[in-house]
C-alpha cells in the first residue's frame, strides 16, 4: 500500500484510523456501472481517436500519433473514472471478547487465618484446590501444618495459582483481567496462561471497599460485556459504596458477580470493640460520655472489664457480662477537667482463648475536644418544625453553649413571639443594636419570613457578620428561608438561588440524597466519625429527603461540602451544604430542612455532633483569641493513605494578619524525620493559610508553626492508624457475599469449586465497526493530473505545428 499511503498523505488526508488499517482499504465507486462502461469504451475510443488523428494529422509521425492518442484516451478514462465517483472505503470490524474480571480482596482482614474448617472433607477439598497433595483423603503432616497456617489471602492465591488449565482455557474465549481490591481497585499484571500473583508483603491494605471495587470493574469495562466478575473475599466491607448498590449496578450492566468466600465461617472466639463514640467535644466540668459497642463469640457469661484510658491514665472501668447473641452497649464516663484534645482508648483485656490475629480488635480510640469556651448562640426560627425541636434541646444540653445573659442559648420562636405580642408590656426578644447582636458568637437563622423580623434586624445581622465576625448559619425551609429574602441578605450566602421558585421538591418515586464532596470529606463540619471510612459510610447511609432550597450554583468564594446529586445544571450538582467568608464572619448554608433525618438509627449521636460542630465552626472568635495564631488539622485521625487538611490563622507580633503568600509548618513524624507542609494564603481571608498533608506512616504526628518573630508558636496533633474496622468482624461475611452475588444475577462459588466457573459464564463477543469513506476525485492531485494530460496533448500539437 505504499502508493495509496503516498496518495493520501499527499492530498492531506490524516484520519489515523484509516492510515492504521490501510491494508483493509478498498476502492469503490458510487456509480460503478459508469466506471465499467467507461473502461469498456476505452479501447474502442483509443482506436477511434488514433484513426481519426491518422486521417486528420497526416503526415504526422506514428509515435506522435500514438502519444496523442494515449493522452486523449487517458483524459477520457480519467473523466469516466471521476464521473463514476471513486472513493476509498474502510470497513474494519473489531471483535472484543467479553471480560472476566478476577478481583482478589487484599485488605487487612484477608491476613487473618483462613481456617479453622469445621468439616474435614471441606478442608481437604480446599487443600487439593490450593495445590496440596491429598492422598487417601488425608494430608501429610508437613502439608497439614502449612495449610493450617495459610492466611485467607494466601489461600486465595494458592487456589488461583493451582487452577491448572482454568485460566488459559478461559483466555481462549474471554479477556481475563486480574485486580486487587483494598480501598481502591488496582489492576494486577498477571498472565492468564501462567498465573503468578504478588507476594504477601506487597498486598496489605487498610480498608475493604467491595462495592467500589465492583463499580470500578464496570467502569473499567467501558461498556464492554463482562461475562463474570469473580470476587474472592471474606466479605467484610468496611467502607465506600454499599455492596447492595454495587450489585444493582452490576445487574443493570448484566454483569453477574461470582462471590467466592475465602475464610472460615466457624465463629472464632473473640471479643471485639466494634464501635466507640464520643460527642466529639465537651466543656470543662462536663461529664464526658463514651459509648462503646462490643461483640463477642464463645465467651457467654464471662465477666470482663471495659476500661477507658486517656493516654496511660485510667479514667473509668465498668464490668460487662459477655453475651454473644447480640451486640452489647456500655457507657463509660469521666469528668473533663482540663481543656485540650484527648485521645481516649477503650480496652478489653485480651482473653487467653483469642487468636493472636484478633487481639488488636480489643481496643479502639476516639478523640475528644475539651473546651473552656462558651459559645453564645442566638437561634431564631419561624415555627416548631422538627429540626427546631431537636436542635433547641441539643443546644440546651451542650454545656459549651450559652446565651447573651443566660446559661442557655437564646431561642426565639416566631409563633410564640406572635402570640405574646398582643400581651400588654410584651418586649421584643431580638437584640436591638449592633453591639448586642455582636455579643453572640453564632446566629442560627431558621425558616422565618423576613417581615417577621424587626425592622433593621437583617441590616444589623449583615453588619455584624461582615464587620464583627459573627458566625451565621442559614437553615433553609419552605416557608421563607432564604428564597423570601432580598438580595442584600442573599449576598451573604455561599450560594446563589434560582429565581422565582420557593424550593425544590423531589418526586415521590425519586427522593433526593446527600453526597459529600471531597472537600466535605475532609471538613470538620461533616466529620460524624473519626474513622474516614466509617464517616463516608455514615453519610452514604443517610435517609433520602423530599425538599431542599432551590440553589442555582455556589458563589465564587464558597466551599461546597455536600451536594444534592439528583439535581444538576451547567454549574454542576446542586450545592446543599456550603460555607464562605463574608467579611470577617463565616456563613454556613444548609439547603435541607430535614437534618432530623440524620437521627435514623443513631438518635442524638450524629445529629448533636453535626450541630455542635456547625455552631462552633462558624463561631466568631473572641477578641482576645482573634489575633492569636491558631493551627488546626482536620481530621485529626486518619488511616494510612488518607490526607489531612491544615488550617492556620497567622498574625504577626503586632496582631496583624500575615501577608506572605505561603507559610511553612514543621511536622514531627513518628520516625522523627522532620518534614514540612507548605500552606498557601487564602485570598478571601487575610492571615488564613491552608494546605494538605499526606502522612507517610502510622503513628503520632505533631505539626508546629514557629513564626520566629515573637508571635505565638502553636501546634496541633494527629494520629495515623489503620482502621480497626478490618478486624472488627473477623468471620467471613457470607451474607454480604451472597447478597452481592444474588442481586447481580450471579451466585456464590466455593473456593474449591472454582473449576466450574467456565460453565457459569455467559458472554458473547461484542463487534464494533470502524467505517470510513473518502472520495478520491475531489482533490488537487486529480485536477493536476487532468491538466497535465490535457497540456501534454495541446503541447505536443503545438510543438509539431499541428492544429
Amino acid at each position, binding site marked *: 500500500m505504499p502508493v495509496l499511503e503516498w496518495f493520501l498523505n499527499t492530498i492531506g488526508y490524516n484520519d489515523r484510523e484509516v492510515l492504521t488499517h490501510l491494508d483493509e482499504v478498498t476502492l469503490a465507486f458510487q456509480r460503478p456501472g459508469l466506471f465499467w462502461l467507461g473502461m469498456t469504451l476505452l479501447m474502442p475510443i483509443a482506436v477511434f481517436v488514433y484513426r481519426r488523428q491518422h486521417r486528420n494529422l497526416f503526415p504526422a509521425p506514428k509515435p506522435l500519433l500514438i502519444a496523442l492518442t494515449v493522452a486523449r484516451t487517458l483524459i477520457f478514462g480519467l473523466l469516466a473514472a471521476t464521473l463514476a465517483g471513486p472513493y476509498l472505503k474502510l470497513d474494519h470490524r473489531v471483535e472484543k471478547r467479553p471480560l472476566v474480571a478476577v478481583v482478589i480482596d487484599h485488605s487487612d482482614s484477608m491476613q487473618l487465618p483462613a481456617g479453622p474448617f469445621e468439616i474435614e472433607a471441606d478442608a481437604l477439598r480446599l487443600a487439593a484446590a490450593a495445590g496440596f497433595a491429598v492422598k487417601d483423603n488425608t494430608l501429610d503432616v508437613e502439608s497439614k501444618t502449612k495449610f493450617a497456617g495459610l492466611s485467607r489471602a494466601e489461600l486465595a492465591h494458592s487456589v488461583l495459582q493451582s487452577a491448572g488449565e482454568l485460566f488459559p482455557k478461559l483466555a481462549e474465549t474471554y479477556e481475563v483481567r486480574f485486580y486487587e481490591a483494598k480501598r481502591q481497585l488496582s489492576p494486577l499484571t498477571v498472565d492468564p496462561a501462567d498465573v503468578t500473583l504478588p507476594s504477601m508483603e506487597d498486598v496489605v491494605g487498610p480498608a475493604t471497599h467491595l462495592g467500589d471495587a465492583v463499580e470500578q470493574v464496570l467502569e473499567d469495562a467501558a461498556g464492554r460485556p463482562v461475562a463474570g466478575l469473580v470476587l474472592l473475599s471474606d466479605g467484610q466491607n468496611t467502607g465506600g459504596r454499599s455492596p447492595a448498590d454495587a450489585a444493582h449496578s452490576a445487574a443493570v450492566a448484566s454483569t453477574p458477580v461470582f462471590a467466592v468466600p475465602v475464610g472460615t465461617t466457624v465463629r472464632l472466639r473473640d471479643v471485639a470493640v466494634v464501635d466507640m463514640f464520643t460527642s466529639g467535644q465537651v466543656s470543662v466540668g462536663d461529664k464526658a460520655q463514651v459509648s462503646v459497642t462490643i461483640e463477642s463469640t464463645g465467651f457467654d457469661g464471662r465477666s470482663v472489664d471495659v476500661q477507658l484510658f486517656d493516654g496511660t491514665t485510667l479514667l473509668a472501668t465498668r464490668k460487662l457480662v459477655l453475651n454473644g447473641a447480640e451486640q452489647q452497649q456500655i457507657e463509660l464516663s469521666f469528668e473533663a477537667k482540663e481543656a485540650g484534645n484527648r485521645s481516649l482508648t477503650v480496652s478489653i483485656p485480651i482473653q487467653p482463648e483469642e487468636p493472636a490475629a484478633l487481639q488488636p480488635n480489643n481496643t479502639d480510640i476516639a478523640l475528644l475536644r475539651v473546651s473552656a469556651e462558651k459559645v453564645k448562640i442566638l437561634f431564631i426560627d419561624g415555627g416548631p418544625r422538627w429540626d427546631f425541636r431537636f436542635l433547641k434541646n441539643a443546644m440546651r444540653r451542650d454545656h459549651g453553649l450559652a446565651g447573651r445573659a443566660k446559661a442557655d442559648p437564646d431561642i426565639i*420562636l416566631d409563633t410564640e413571639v406572635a402570640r405574646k405580642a398582643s400581651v400588654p408590656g410584651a418586649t421584643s426578644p431580638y437584640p436591638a443594636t449592633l453591639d448586642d447582636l455582636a455579643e453572640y458568637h453564632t446566629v442560627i437563622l431558621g425558616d422565618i419570613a423576613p417581615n417577621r423580623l424587626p425592622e433593621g434586624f437583617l441590616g444589623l445581622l449583615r453588619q455584624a457578620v461582615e464587620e464583627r465576625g459573627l458566625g451565621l448559619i442559614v437553615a433553609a425551609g419552605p416557608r421563607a428561608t432564604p428564597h423570601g429574602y432580598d438580595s442584600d441578605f442573599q449576598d451573604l450566602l455561599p450560594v446563589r438561588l434560582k429565581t422565582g421558585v420557593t424550593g425544590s421538591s423531589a418526586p415521590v418515586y425519586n427522593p433526593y440524597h446527600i453526597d459529600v464532596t471531597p472537600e466535605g470529606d475532609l471538613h470538620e463540619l461533616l466529620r460524624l466519625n473519626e474513622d474516614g471510612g466509617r464517616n463516608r459510610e455514615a453519610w452514604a447511609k443517610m435517609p433520602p429527603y423530599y425538599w431542599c432550597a432551590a440553589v442555582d450554583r455556589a458563589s465564587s468564594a464558597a466551599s461546597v461540602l455536600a451536594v444534592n446529586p439528583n439535581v444538576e445544571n451547567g454549574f454542576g450538582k446542586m450545592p446543599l451544604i456550603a460555607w464562605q467568608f463574608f467579611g470577617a464572619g463565616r456563613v454556613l448554608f444548609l439547603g435541607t430542612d430535614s437534618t432530623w433525618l440524620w437521627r435514623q438509627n443513631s438518635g442524638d449521636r450524629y445529629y448533636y455532633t453535626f450541630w455542635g460542630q456547625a455552631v462552633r465552626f462558624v463561631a466568631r472568635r473572641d477578641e482576645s483569641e482573634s489575633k492569636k495564631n491558631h493551627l488546626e488539622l482536620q481530621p485529626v485521625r486518619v488511616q494510612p493513605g488518607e490526607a489531612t487538611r491544615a488550617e492556620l490563622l497567622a498574625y504577626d507580633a503586632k496582631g496583624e494578619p500575615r501577608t506572605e503568600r505561603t507559610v511553612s509548618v514543621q511536622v514531627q513524624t513518628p520516625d522523627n524525620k522532620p518534614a514540612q507542609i507548605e500552606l498557601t494564603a487564602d485570598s478571601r481571608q487575610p492571615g488564613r493559610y491552608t494546605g494538605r498533608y499526606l502522612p507517610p506512616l502510622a503513628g503520632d504526628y505533631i505539626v508546629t508553626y514557629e513564626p520566629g518573630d515573637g508571635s505565638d508558636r502553636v501546634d496541633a496533633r494527629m494520629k495515623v492508624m489503620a482502621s480497626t474496622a478490618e478486624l472488627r468482624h473477623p468471620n467471613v461475611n457470607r451474607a454480604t457475599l451472597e447478597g452481592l452475588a444474588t442481586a447481580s444475577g450471579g451466585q456464590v462459588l466455593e473456593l474449591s469449586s472454582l473449576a466450574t466457573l467456565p460453565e457459569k459464564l455467559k458472554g458473547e463477543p461484542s463487534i464494533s465497526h470502524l467505517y470510513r469513506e473518502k472520495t478520491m476525485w475531489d482533490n488537487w492531485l486529480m485536477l493536476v493530473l487532468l491538466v497535465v494530460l490535457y497540456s501534454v496533448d495541446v503541447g505536443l500539437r503545438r510543438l509539431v505545428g499541428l492544429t
Partner: protein
Amino acid sequence: MTPRFVFSSDLYRRGLVVLLAASLPFLGSATAQPPARPTSAAPLTEAAVVARVEKSVDRALKYLASKQLPDGGWHNNQAINGLSILAFLGRGHVPGRGPYAEVLENGKKAILRSQNDAGFLGGTMYEHGLATLALSELYGMDPDPILEQKLRKAVQLIVSAQSPAGGWRYNPVPNDQDLSVTVVQIVALRAANNAEIEVPEQVIEKAVTYIRNSAVPTGGYGYQGQGGATAQTAAAGIVSLQLLGKYDDPSIPKALEFLNKVPVEWKTGPANYFYYFHYYAIQAQYQTGGESWNSWHPKIRELLLSRQNVDGSWDVPDGTAEQANSVGPNKVYWTAMSSLILEIYMHFLPAYQR
C-alpha cells in the same frame, strides 16, 4: 357503615387502656428545659438489623394507608386515628411531601373535624390525649393555621381537666384520676410543651406527684392509687417518670426489676395487654439504656418481625386482652402499635427524645 367503637365501663378500664401504649413514649421532659443529660446509649450499629426493621415498618405503613377510610380516618375513634398518624410520622413521613403526604393530610383533617367547641377531640380523654399528641407532632411541620388553633384549644382542655390529685380520668372534668388516662395526658402535654406551647409548670409537677404516689412498695405502679398494679402499669409508670426527667426516681429500679422479669412472648401472661405493655416497656428500656436495653430490645424486635403478616399487618396473641372487639377492626391498632414499637430505632419523633 363502620360500627361505632363502644366503650363499656369494663372496656374503659381494660380494653382502651391499651391506648396508653402510644402515649408514654412521647413524654417530653419534666420542665420547660430538657434534662441536662448528655447523649447516652450508643446507636444501633448493625446495618442489617436496621434494614429489616425499615422494611417491616414500610410494609406496615403500606397496609395502614390501604385501610384509611374515605373520611380520612381509620376509625371513628380518635385514638386509633392518632396512633395511625403517629406511625407514619415515626417513620419520618411528614406533611406535604413524600409518598404519604395525602394520608397525613386526610388523617389530620379527620381528627380536627372531631373537635367540639370546648376543644374536646373524640369521646373520651384517651382519644383526646392521643389525638392531641398526634396534632402536636404535626404542628410545625404543617403550616395549617387551623391546626395550631385547635391544638392550643386541645391543650387548654387537658390543663383545665386535671384533678386536684394531679391526674385525669375518662371525662374532661377535674373529678377523678387513674394512671392510664393520666399518662396519656402527660404525654400530650409534654409533646405540646416541646413544640413551645406553654403548659403551666404546676400542671406537670402535680402529675409527677400523682405518679409517684402511685408507686407500689414491691415494685411498679398502681392503676388507681397503689391498687391494681400490673406489668402494664409498671412499664407505663417508669416511662412517665423518665420522660418527665425523673430518671433517678427511687421507685424506678424496683419497677425495672419487675419489668425485666416479664417474659417477651406471643401469648397471654403477665403482659396480657400485649401492645400496651410492649410499647411502654421498650420506651422504658430505651430510656434506661445499658444492660437493660441491651437484653430487652432484641427480644421484642425479633418477636414482632417474626409475627408480621404477609400483607404488612400484625395480629394479636390469642387469649390476650386487645382483641378486635375492643380495639377496632382491620388490625389497624395492632399494626400501628407494632410500627411504633419498631420505630424506636428511627429516633424521628421529637417526643421520643431522651
